[in-house]
């Protein structure tokens, strides 16, 4: 009953055979060893599993691996490398928006999806976007600040003011 799929993950095409009941989250974690996206609740409540599917934030626990066939997935591992972090990753570090880190990959992917749609969100819009992502450590203030700082840097980058 394995289903053959082709899915682009972080820019690389993967040809896999997945089980019909396998979630995109477990495919990423168990088959591809991309353990950035976390399983918090497995029912859409916590946001720890958020990845981009065709550029939009989705709860990977609520998507079947088979549904990703022919689509493009971006995980936190696809964003930056040590020494060449994405503006969101840099801003999360700079603003101490990470404590235990369990929520961080989902938070960053949710924020990225928002900034791709809306490069200059208000604080209210950021709050709305991350309201499906639970953080039990930071109290959210640092996360809101980090997202705004990253947004600013990404806008500056888009205007070519950065090298």
């Amino acid at each position, binding site marked *: *009953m394995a*289903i053959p799929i082709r899915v682009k993950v972080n820019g690389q095409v993967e040809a896999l055979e997945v089980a*019909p*009941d396998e*979630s995109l989250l477990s495919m990423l974690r168990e088959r591809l060893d991309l353990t950035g996206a976390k399983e918090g609740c*497995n*029912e*859409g*409540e916590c*946001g720890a599993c*958020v990845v981009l*599917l065709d550029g*939009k*934030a*989705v*709860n990977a626990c*609520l*998507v*079947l691996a*088979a*549904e990703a*066939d022919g689509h493009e997935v971006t995980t936190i591992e696809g964003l930056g490398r040590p020494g060449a972090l994405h503006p969101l990753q840099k801003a999360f570090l700079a603003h101490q928006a990470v404590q235990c880190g369990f929520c961080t990959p989902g938070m960053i992917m*949710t924020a990225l*999806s*928002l900034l791709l749609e809306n490069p200059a969100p208000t604080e209210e819009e950021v709050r*709305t*976007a*991350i*309201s*499906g*992502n639970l953080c039990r450590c930071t109290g959210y203030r640092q996360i809101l600040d980090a997202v705004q700082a990253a947004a600013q840097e990404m806008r500056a980058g888009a205007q070519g003011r950065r090298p």
Partner: protein
Amino acid sequence: MQERLDYRKAHSVEEALTLFQDLPRSRYMAGGTDLLPRARGSGQAPSRLVDIKGIPELSRIEELPSGDLRIGAAVSVAAVAAHPTVRQRFSALSLCASALGSYPLRNRATVVGNICNASPCADTAAALLCLDATVLCVGPAGPRRIPIHEFFVGPGQTSLASGELALAVEIPAASAGGRAELGRLSRRQGVDIATVAVLLSVLPQRSPRHRVALLSVAPTPRRASEAETLLDQRGPSAANAAAEAAMAAARPIDDVRGTAAYRREMVGVLLTRAVRALGAA
């Protein structure tokens, strides 16, 4: 989820109907945000999921020459909430779609899936009831149109026959314009379903002009027509009487999110607030 689950992606409406008929326990799947957690939780997974997101004609929002708006069954809640026509002409729907779930969930969940799931708390149902929408569907017996007022039968139950596929929901041009106010209480802002919600919408071209929909206080989402009549007759000064009428129309139950008494009380409070907000605007 059950081991012998079968996932099939349909590429046309005909293929979806055939895939469904092939196996006794099939379900159509749009966003899967209701279906997948339920299949996992209960151990009674449907034996086949027929994914309808690969059907191009279901993936569109179209403005028809008549001015009616047609929303395909595979269109996400997020796309509906953000659609310029929905925001300008049918703001009640944009308001309710924005209130559903979380941002990543709205990217996946569909409006048609929301009504087919037929939960008493279905956020977009409140708007579609007020806007006099129609559900377009097709099944082994052919196509038909179901007025939204006849669509909800009970918790989780619609008037769709077995194997019938909802293709789209249509909102008539005559429901365009006007204003809407949503009062919605939930345990957690931004993710949880409504413990109780009241949508008030005022449609200038319609009779009654005032529309009141109630969520999570009856076996199905429902309108409170006596409250509507009172508001049409006497305007904002009927707020208290309308609140009483809406409370009388509620048939709430006790559950983990709240008691029946609380829900009934809140129907009155939320409607009074909504009347005040719209009256003052």
